[in-house]
């Protein structure tokens, strides 16, 4: 097999693991948009808080499971970070977005920008602006690929990449089950379909919206931990760029559409990996946003989204 194909497969693997992270964050954007029709700008910063929740709790949690990096320890860190982010997400919604529910969407959007700035600057104050080294919760090493695989053994696949993709797939299926097969999930779908009719049918709007924020934020928290396994350098502004990219992913897949967000995340991750691998790393951001503009011009409803007509 030629080197080009190996190179291509390598970029594919790198893109896949980055795309999984974007997919997890994009889900939070898309679920909130589906229900409340606004962009939760602070979502990227919740992802950052997830990484920091792991940073502060990991040493203790790992102690409980024998000290060193271990699978149960890493699972505990992941769950704690998800729980912490879910709580933060619910609090943000309760304090900042709920009082503005009847206000124009622009007001809520500006508030979200304010919350985002608050979390970034507050993070810089509380955690310090310098990058922190995330503790090793699982040993990230390259997998041994047997010689019998021939030319494929030249590929580098790390434990971290396998875990990221595996955990993301698991979370996606868990989310699918929650949305499709639980009463709360049904209420979420009802609310995104028609909020007024849903509330008339006895759906408790406030609880469902809180639940949605909690769910989305938990996924962002998981993304924060999964990123930190691969790139163990975390800082309070890490959520800005990741959040914007994940948002592009959500729009690409069709905002408000859950499978679309997952698909968009993967595509953006792959696109980035190929731009870095074949074009130039400095063009990465510009090309991702170029894709966003192209999508909005050609098909604003996204790849999987439905077109909505604005009614007078």
């Amino acid at each position, binding site marked *: 097999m030629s080197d080009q194909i190996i190179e291509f497969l390598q970029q594919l693997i790198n893109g896949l693991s980055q795309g999984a992270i974007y997919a997890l964050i994009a889900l939070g954007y898309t679920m909130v948009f589906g229900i409340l029709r606004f962009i939760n700008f602070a979502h990227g910063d919740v992802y950052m808080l997830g990484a920091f929740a792991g940073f502060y709790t990991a040493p203790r949690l790992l102690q409980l499971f024998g000290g060193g990096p271990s699978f149960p320890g890493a699972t505990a860190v992941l769950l704690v970070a998800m729980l912490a982010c879910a709580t933060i997400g619910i609090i943000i919604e309760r304090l900042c977005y709920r009082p503005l529910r009847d206000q124009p*969407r622009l007001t809520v959007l500006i508030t979200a920008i304010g919350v985002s*700035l608050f979390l970034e600057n507050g993070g810089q104050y509380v955690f310090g602006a310098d990058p922190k080294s995330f503790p090793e919760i699982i040993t990230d090493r390259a997998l041994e690929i047997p010689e019998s695989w021939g030319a494929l053994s030249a590929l580098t696949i790390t434990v971290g990449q396998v875990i990221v993709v595996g955990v993301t797939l698991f979370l996606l299926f868990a989310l699918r089950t929650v949305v499709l097969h639980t009463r709360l999930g049904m209420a979420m779908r009802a609310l995104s379909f028609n909020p007024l009719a849903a509330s008339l049918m006895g759906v408790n709007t406030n609880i469902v919206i809180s639940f949605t924020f909690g769910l989305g934020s938990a996924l962002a928290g998981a993304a924060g931990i999964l990123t930190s396994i691969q790139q163990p350098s975390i800082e309070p502004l890490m959520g800005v760029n990741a959040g914007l990219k994940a948002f592009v992913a959500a729009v690409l897949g069709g905002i408000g559409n859950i499978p679309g967000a997952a698909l968009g995340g993967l595509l953006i991750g792959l696109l980035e990996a190929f731009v870095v691998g074949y074009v130039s790393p400095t063009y990465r951001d510009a090309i991702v946003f170029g894709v966003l503009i192209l999508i909005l011009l050609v098909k604003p409803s996204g790849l999987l989204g439905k077109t909505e007509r604005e009614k007078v």
Partner: protein
Amino acid sequence: MLERTKILLLASLLLCGLASWGLGGISPYYYDILIGIGINIILAVSLNLVNGYTGQFSLGHAGFMAVGAYASSWLTLTFGYILGTHATGTTFMYVAALLAGGIGAAVAGLAVGIPSLRLRGDYLAIVTLGFNEIIKGIIQNAEPLGAQRGLGGMVQHTNLFWTFAFAAITIYVVLNLVHSTYGSGFLAVRDDEIAAEAMGINTTKYKVLAFTIGAFFAGVAGGLYAHYKQFVHPEGFNFLRSVDIVVMVILGGMGSTFGVVFAAILLTILPEWLRAVSDYPWLPEWLREIAENRMILYSLLLIILMLTRPQGLFGGISFSKKRA
């Protein structure tokens, strides 16, 4: 009406000249703040035309500023001495470069205005943000513009006169535009786009026009900034710079030029004042702590403002006697 505003413009230009002459010996620190105020007024008032008067939420104003800053810098660096080294010649080239930078930004504004025809609200905010990132990305890869190293070596032509003269012109153009019969189209697009269209208003034209004019002045502001700091860097025109300008417009009240000018002044002075406050030894420790972390305070203020007075400090208050 028109005559009065023209007299006002001439008077304020004269005042700029006098102030520039009279404040010649002011300390560099205050001079710096004054220039910052002027540039922020231009940025905020021009963004207000797009965000406040036309109701198109743009999050990419720093991108237009970058176009103007880089275009004018490149022009003065390349052609600055084409008319000789005498001050008159270089100043003429400087003003020409500022205007050319503005035109460059206006062309970029036209390019952003076209997608805005199809998008509204949140989507438009994201597209303009994307444009901001793309402009930054192009500059980061453009060798003649210094790429990631930034561009420096411009002569410091910007002074109080030019800054405030352009600020006065910006206010004059925006106010005259929105208070003219022609300009009520902007307000109609903001208030109800569908109704405006049904009444035969060419909403497309007004949206593109707002973007183009807003971008022109942002470009001029970028040129002024570049020829004051004598150094520009792509990271200086990022998303957060755009948010800064948006906050000025929101705090002042969307669609209130007076309020926006006030907010631009306030938000330029406030960080400096808080910096000074954090050094007062007689203040209690916790107050100094708060002042030191002014960005946290800033974001909290934004949230509280939205929760309590979403129309901004001066939103909905018009200071002109004649209703537009």
